[in-house]
């Protein structure tokens, strides 16, 4: 993998962020909301509003506003929230931290469950086990997160009282509680992905098991188990890296809903609140940060893949 390739990918990220910034700026420009009104509230007099618009440069032409926004963005200034009057950047990044914790745990759990399921399904292809696995995965994709979340809370918290229903405790504050609060949301999020990934693993492994080199390995007298471990899994699991990375997009989406229900002050919550309150700077920052996260994750995934699979020659 050449430095050439890495550089190219980095440039792609920059381009991505540029496009996203255009999109989000365009959207926030036409959102039915007046930043000044949002800030001062319904009781603001016109003088007050105009004064504020001036100071916020809202009366400048669009492109100028965009330029200004991008400029301050590059200096790490995401602007101030119209809702709380506090700088957006720090809030968003803190929130992002929490969301990432949620996301990483979810992916972890998902992999722990999805990969074995996929493998079982693949080697018992067409047998009962296979059907069971696919049923499980279908169950996962059959309900929107907000329903699964609701049911989960009803059962595990209200009924069984095993876990705290909702809320969030920073791990730094109290690790054990923090984890206990995360269990349900993490499960809800991972369920959706398990379906996708286990099916992925299954099909990949099925393909690999039909390749000549697997046959060749068996012809060397290696047992099925050894062949699976030494030869098949590695090649079958490699592609999952990319798939999982792509799923991060879907995951971040799911995180939005789950955070709303479980009252986790992650970036998803922040965005919902921001959108509901027409807090334009917050929306812009939030979307950009999400997009950036997504791109970076995929970048890392590609590098990892290229590093693990020597075959691929990138120019």
């Amino acid at each position, binding site marked *: 993998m*050449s430095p050439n390739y890495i550089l190219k990918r980095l*440039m792609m990220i920059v381009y991505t962020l540029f496009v996203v910034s255009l999109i989000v700026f365009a959207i926030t420009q036409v959102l039915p909301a007046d930043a000044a009104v949002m800030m001062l509230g319904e009781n603001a007099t016109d003088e007050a509003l105009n004064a504020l618009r001036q100071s916020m440069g809202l009366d400048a032409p669009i492109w100028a506003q965009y330029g200004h926004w991008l400029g301050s963005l590059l200096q790490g200034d995401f602007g101030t929230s119209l809702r709380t009057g506090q700088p957006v950047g720090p809030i968003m990044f803190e929130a992002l931290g929490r969301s990432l914790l949620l996301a990483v745990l979810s992916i972890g759990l998902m992999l722990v469950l999805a990969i074995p399921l996929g493998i079982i399904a693949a080697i018992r292809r067409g047998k009962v086990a296979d059907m069971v696995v696919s049923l499980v995965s279908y169950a996962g994709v059959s309900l929107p997160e907000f329903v699964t979340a609701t049911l989960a809370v009803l059962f595990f918290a209200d009924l069984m009282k095993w876990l705290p229903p909702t809320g969030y405790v920073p791990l730094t504050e109290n690790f054990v509680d923090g984890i206990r609060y995360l269990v349900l949301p993490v499960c809800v999020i991972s369920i959706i992905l398990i379906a996708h990934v286990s099916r992925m693993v299954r099909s990949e492994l099925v393909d690999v098991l039909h390749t000549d080199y697997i046959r060749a390995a068996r*012809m060397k007298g290696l047992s099925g188990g050894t062949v699976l471990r030494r030869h098949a899994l590695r090649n079958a699991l490699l592609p999952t890296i990319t798939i999982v990375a792509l799923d991060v997009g879907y995951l971040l989406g799911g995180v939005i809903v789950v955070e709303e229900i479980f009252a986790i002050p992650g970036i998803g919550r922040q965005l919902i609140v921001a959108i509901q309150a027409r807090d334009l700077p917050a929306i812009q920052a939030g979307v950009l940060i999400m997009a950036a996260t997504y791109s970076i994750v995929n970048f890392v995934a590609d590098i990892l893949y290229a590093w693990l699979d020597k075959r691929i020659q990138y120019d």
Partner: protein
Amino acid sequence: MTDNTKNAVLDVRNYSLDYKTANGTFHALKDISLEIARGEILGLVGESGSGKTSLAWSIMRYLPGNARETSGKILLSGEDLAQKSSSEIENMRGKRISMVFQDPSTSLNPTLSLGSQLSEVLVRHRGLTRKQAWSEGEAMLARVGLKTPAAMMHRMPHEASGGEKQRVVIATAFACNPECIIFDEPTTALDVITSRQILDLFVELQAETGVASLYISHDLALVSRTAGRVAVIRRGELVEQGSVGEIFTTPRQDYTRELIAAVPDPRRRLVAGQVPTDAQPLVRVEDVSVHYGRKPFLAALTGRKHERVTGNRAVSLSVNQGEILGIVGESGSGKSTLAKAMTGLNPFEGKIWFDGRPITGLKDMNTVYRKDVQIIFQHPDASLNPRQRIGEILSRPLKLYGDAANLDQQIGDMLEQVRLPRTHASRYPHQLSGGEKQRVAIARAFASRPKLVICDEITSALDVSVQASIVQLLLELQKAGNTAYLFITHDLNLIRQIAHRIAVMYRGDLIEIAPADQIDSPQRADYTRRLLDAVPPPVGSAA
């Protein structure tokens, strides 16, 4: 092991195998009986679908779930393999009986180093530690004639050439000095010269170890010079079996005769000697070069110049009216690249003169040119749109080049012209056999009564007998329309049979062009001679 080295190492007796499929039972092998003694090579010859590979898998005890062994037994040194437990089989595989596959690039795990793939078999069967196995492996690589064994051990498959990889596979097969090795078309995927080297290696090792070898191949010529005895298999049945001499000189069965007859033989020229080189050639290719690839990003950024991949380097040649010009060369020699350039599938530099009209690029290739220059591709299943009926496929050229009047009539004629029933018009490609598909492709090419037809390896995907008939057809069409062919192939014997002149290409360069009958003269270029040496001397000379 007992001392009965006289007796057969591998002994297949009245063996029959069925496959249960959705549409009924399929008899893959019917009452097969053959023996291979120690130190003997049995060549198993058959066309695709004849069941030769099924036999290999049954011997290796690696059969799909829907396989049913209806009769007979398979004995290895007297032990009935069918009786053995799966663990016993696993202990046997790779140790007492091993296998060499057709394509080394697919039979090696792309993500494991060659060394680990070789040494794992030693660890498995000879109980060596990884370290011992590794050094042992190096020794073996040396034995199979690899120059730098130590380095080769650490290479990944994609870092080694096809020949090197196949040597590693062979080394693995011989690793535990097995009693029997099955070679499944071990050279088919390789280039002429490489396969020759692999073959030599095989013969050498075989002689050295005296392993009983079952050599499976579709290539009679090749088998004729490696095997001691030959067994011809067809539709799951052994047609006949005997020493190479008997089979090739005095075949008893018609099928065997056809097979032998079908094998291309340079001494049996199928075209009249020279075509008169008229004043102006039909096509003249002038310094045509083709490059691939775009400047990579960083290079573009830094303005650093970078070497583009070259497909053709300043190739110049000409084809006369009604001439068959053969182009031979190994894969990557740029034969097909030239063909693509001439049909506007590749951008190219240089000039092509057609009928005295200069063609400098895609833009110059007008309908007239398109009509006059047609191309036929290697794989008919790829070149015929799976979602169009034969009728529609054949109707296109007619619609494009002139008279679309009473299409059905014309299409019918076209089909008959290539010896296909008119009714095929209503069929889809996947309902036809490989040979039939290629005939359709040919019909499509000739629909526009072209002056030049470019045949890009059009027979290499087909069985010998089919190939023969296709070639037959092509020559008839050629005579009928005095069409010129640019016949691209890697099969020297074939081209020597049918071409007027032969152009030899190597790594994008045109080495030389020579009249077909003088291609074997000693003053040919060195590479040309190496090519000729590599191809097995045609059948019959063995006798």
